[in-house]
């Protein structure tokens, strides 16, 4: 784990990168990294995020400057900008069930090729997917999802990069912290090693590549 500034962290992300961003409607999103992506005008981003948040919040900020070229998520209904860009075919949006979204990422982080889920069988979601029967029950094969960078927000991070999360800001963060080549973390509080008891560490330090220093 290496401590960096938000500016240095985002400078590592090239245009066109595939980024996974934690958060649910902007709650538990690393806002400082999003602000920096906007400031450095990173473009053509392939975004993997549960939702498009709302304009001006979380990943919603990326749609204002048209920095996203494609998105995989579950819901974009509360961000009119994302909707417009999708309906105007400026961006491609792959909307998938939320349970499938998180399991595909979990699979990506856990060395699995994918998962079998009953969700989506008999709906538009099954189009183009392999259907597999197990014990007489149909499932869809949903393939693993990984990214070049995971942008994660924790509540506590210690100097060794161990992370814990708070309340409903945990959501996709610990799952995404497993599923990218480079993991960049912001935290509400950076604390000495030992403040987070081993039993309360959710994301172990070795998974974290860069911890953004608090200014």
């Amino acid at each position, binding site marked *: 784990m290496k401590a960096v500034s938000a500016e240095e962290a985002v400078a590592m992300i090239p245009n066109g990168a595939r980024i996974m961003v934690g958060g649910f409607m902007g709650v538990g999103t690393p806002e400082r990294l999003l602000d920096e992506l906007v400031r450095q005008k990173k473009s053509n981003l392939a975004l993997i995020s549960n939702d498009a948040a709302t304009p001006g919040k979380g990943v919603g900020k990326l749609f204002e400057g048209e920095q996203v070229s494609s998105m995989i998520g579950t819901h974009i*209904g509360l961000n009119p900008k994302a909707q417009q860009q999708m309906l105007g075919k400026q961006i491609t949006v792959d909307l998938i069930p939320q349970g499938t979204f998180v399991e595909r990422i979990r699979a990506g982080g856990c060395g699995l090729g994918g998962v079998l889920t009953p969700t989506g069988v008999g709906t*538009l979601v099954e189009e183009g997917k392999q259907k597999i029967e197990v014990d007489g029950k149909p499932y869809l094969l949903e393939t693993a999802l990984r990214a070049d960078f995971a942008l994660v927000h924790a509540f506590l991070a210690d100097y060794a990069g161990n992370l814990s999360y708070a309340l409903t800001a945990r959501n996709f963060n610990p799952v995404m912290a497993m599923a990218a080549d480079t993991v960049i973390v912001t935290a509400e509080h950076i604390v000495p090693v030992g403040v987070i008891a081993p039993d309360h560490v959710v994301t172990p330090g070795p998974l974290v590549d860069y911890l953004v220093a608090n200014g």
Partner: protein
Amino acid sequence: MDAQTIIARRVAKELRSGNLVNLGIGIPTLVANYVPAGLNVFFQSENGLIGTGPIPEQGMAHPLLTDAGGKPISALPGAATFDSAMSFGLIRGGHVDITVLGGLQVDGGGHLSNWMIPGKMVPGMGGAMDLVSGAKRVIVAMQHAAKGKSKIVTKCNLPLTSARPVDLVVTDMAVIAFPGGKATLLETAPGLTVAQVLAVTEAELVIPDAVPEMAL
């Protein structure tokens, strides 16, 4: 009593002590206001919480404690938080006893459409497909008709949420279940006759000998 209150009060009667319940946005959210006193029900918010409580008093909200719409909520004693993989494991794994969702259409076989209107409204399905596929019991809470048009249709012409039929539909006019895959009128809203319900229902309904009024 207005339409939404009728629906929310009637759905609340389906809750049992110890149930783990997921409420969707819109009318389903109102169900929490009518939980009978003394009934110990756990509400799940799919963004990672069991034990959701009411909207906090002014100044008591925490920015990291929200419902699935991103709005501030509170947590009750005994609440638990978890990540999204756990949250949807609970949903898909059959650990959620009841899910209450809104609907655009339910058809005569109990199939639900509630996540998109092609070309018009494409917000994404969020957690709806997992909830309908995985919850032990699926209840749809919606208005019986929209702009005079029945939402209980012969066959859904909007994209389905799941191949699995729902268990119960509660509207402002009726309670409908699907025994043997056939839409069956169980109850009418107070003051309504069976004929009045049938007049605004497109799907064919099985009418049992006795169709009581909803007890609210």
